[in-house]
């Protein structure tokens, strides 16, 4: 099958990639760009494990075609840390037990980042609502809520984290 050629920005880096036109953004990230931090749990848009930011908005990368991302800016979990420093959400998730098996964690992190970018002071209810499309089977969500709350206020101090 003839490959399509797409130019996009991935975690701040201008990137060109060629792939079969039926491929989803998830597959392009994992298989063609070796960005395996983004996970898959269903490939049907049900679990949220594959969430990435497309121009700053969380999307399920298993439901987005790679060809639709020409010219777009994509942020994956690999793009959260900058200059060797973890994003505040990564620190609070690590410190407060919000990552157990860690498989759903990349999806939760980018979704939570989009929330804090949009609403720097979310309530517990807003956090629950924003993360309601991400399934976690390990934590019972409480330590995830607490990690997001602990990152409030710390994101603005960190530099260079707006995608």
């Amino acid at each position: 099958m003839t490959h399509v050629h797409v130019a996009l920005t991935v975690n701040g880096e201008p990137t060109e990639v060629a792939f079969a036109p039926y491929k989803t953004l998830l597959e392009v990230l994992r298989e063609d760009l070796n960005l395996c931090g983004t996970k898959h749990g269903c490939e049907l848009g049900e679990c949220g494990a594959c969430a990435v930011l497309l121009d700053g908005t969380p999307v399920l990368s298993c439901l987005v075609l790679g060809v639709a991302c020409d010219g777009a800016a994509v942020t994956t979990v690999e793009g959260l840390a900058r200059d060797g420093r973890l994003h505040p959400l990564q620190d609070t998730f690590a410190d407060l037990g919000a990552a157990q098996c860690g498989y759903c964690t990349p999806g939760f992190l980018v979704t939570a980042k989009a929330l804090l970018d949009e609403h720097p002071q979310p309530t517990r209810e807003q956090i629950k609502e924003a993360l309601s499309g991400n399934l976690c089977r390990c934590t019972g969500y409480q330590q995830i809520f607490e990690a997001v709350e602990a990152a409030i206020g710390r994101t603005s101090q960190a530099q260079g984290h707006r995608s």
Partner: protein
Amino acid sequence: MNTIGTPRRRVDARAKVTGQTRFADDLMLPRMLHCKLLRSTVPHARIVRVDATRAQRRPGVHLVLTGDDFPIPYGILPVSQDEHALARGRVRFVGDPVAAVIARDELTAFEALDLIDVEYEPLRTFASPEESLAHDEPRIHDYGDRGNIHKLVSLSFGDVDAAFAASDRVFDDVFFYQGNTHLPIEQHAAVAARDPDGKLTLWSSTQTPHYVHRALARALDIPPAQVRVVATPNGGGFGGKSDPFNHEIVVAKAALVLDRPVKICLTREEVFYCHRGRHPVVMRLRTGVRNDGTITGMHVQTLLDGGAYGSYGVASTFYTGALQTVTYHIPAYAFQGCRVFTNKPPCGPKRGHGTPQTRFGQEIQLDKIAEALKLDPADLRLRIVERPDTLTANYLRVGTIGLAECIRRVTTASDWGTRFRRLPAGRGIGLACSSYLSGAGLPIYWNDMPHSGVQLKLDRSGGVTAFCGATEIGQGSDDVLVGCVAEVLGIDPSDVRAVTGDTDLTPVDLGSYSSRVTLMMGNAAIQAAERARDLLADAVSRKLGVPTDRLVFAGRRVFDTENADAGVAFAEAVQLAEAAFGTIGTVGSYTPPRSAARFKGGGVGPSPTYSYSAAVVEVEIDPATGWIRVPKVWIAHDIGRALNPTLVRGQVEGSVYMAIGEALMEEQTFRRLRPRLSDALVHKFPSMLEYKSPTTLDMPEVWTELVEHPDPNGPFGAKEVGQGPLLPVMPAVANAVYDAIGVRIDEVPITPEKILKALDAKSAGRPARYGPAAFPAIDWPEALQVPPPWEGGDGRAHPSPDRPLASRHVPATEAVRR
């Protein structure tokens, strides 16, 4: 204590939050091919013909395998070697793998599946345990206790009938616990490759690399020393990755044949069909009590829908009757269990393995008993809690028991005394308790070797590497390993590297199941670290001229407890020891204490120590719609000692979460397609959207408290926490429903539909209840009589005078082996 007991960032946290944890499907090897499985579309049939000619000719296809390539059976239990990697002559459920295609990419492999022609000759389909009990033929398997009965168990500890006769009341209740599945977010994946030296390596999302190692060597008929199994970090397991799986054996075979790496990653639908999850269980519980609430005797009967293969089923069957006795004192106890084969995906171990089902019935029945005797349910339980340091009727050794304190903590925190039976209509609270093993006392295959081993290598830099076969499935086992070593050696956890779950590099640990890893690996790690500490102390003692018993290991130093300035850095201590004794490496291992049970079946239930939990659940119910909401759960867990409280709390809350799913919504159920469409038994909703599990919006607030009385058998006193806290929540929900609206829902999941039906029954004057009407008739074998300790028993079964053992029918092959 510097490390132990302090809330800490787990050692593998950075990898997880940066996306660097390498799960099985993240492995990409040069020249790697991809595998897809063709699965049966019929539930029970003879395979007449498999023709893969067209698939083999497809460009991009490298290999097609069928059942002919896998003549040797395997299975997790030695008594249930009933699986083949690809079906041979017979398929037993929709989803049973029949053929495998290995191709240049997943799409090519997937498309080639359609080119394989399979001709089936349908056989009678068994959809329910009742059907399997009613028809002996055709047999789904040619082994088992009778017809389509896989396993029949009948055990008696003391005279239950006499106990009932001596009681004031006998309560007789029937319950049903629907099956449900693990639903790990990571789908199973495996990669196999032939190493440059010709040996086989399999990387897999497995909880039990040691057992996969054994199964691969057996099923592929290659020497075990030529096989290496690496357990990649699991993206959630919950018991669902504890069996050796057909897809693992298939890619291993393909890699050997093709001499190229081969990967498989299951689709979410395939994960639902692999299952090995919670057995659906219908149960009857008869309990005799005196008017003061004390139990005189208990008789438990269970019927398990096992699905199409043995899996862990024999153990699951025993577990449905094993742990009733460790929570409350039961002077006479009888258990009868029956597991049947049906043409559905095989059931196996899910968090709590066989014990949540009967615990559900037991704790609801206690609620009914309390009400009938006009006792508060918490007071009743406090009266009958098992005593510490007790041998139970079925020979389980209870050591420390924090159950009473758990009950007091949750009732205090939830304001139980002023709220139970006093909340407005539609709101209610319920209480339930439970217990779980801290590791099975016996291995899956009988042997006298340790259950867990740890090796340490101490480097001149002061860095320590800890090797152990334990498997990180998200529960934090690497953190436990590192934490125990760091504590004993007085160094920082960041100084220790964990190398785990690799059958070539690490000593055997039996795997992440039965809540065994913290206790067994932890004790092995402490032993290895203490041996290293002794070597270092010896060398430092000579250098400083201070006796070894005055040396302290803390803060990356080894120093004189009477003069802290006199000391050396930890790295220097290693160098001194290396100069004195040579390369510094130590080993530790752990074998559980010998069980007191010496009867057949007594291998299931013994544990070095038991954890205890109590939960109070609050519910809100709309009687017009039956809609049920759980706003809050209070839970207290007897952990012995929390090694890393952050992770312990995560296990408790994760258990409560999974329990809420089981209580309210999760069910693995099947429907028949119409006969003209094949009469298949298919999963009702094999997708994460339709198989309902709790989201952030469904999760109640959880109040967690840990009861910490160190247990002498636990590492630094620790007990398990991964499974036990799930168990009390489901019955506490059911008891809260009764408190709220006065109806009993004697089964899970407790759905709005069932609530409405129970309310309808109540208003029509019928029993205010939803649940099974009766326990099916089963022709039980004569019970094995084991006198309890207080009747002079020694853990052995009484030989029955009219049925001497010699006259028991023994199959010829079994007799020869003896």
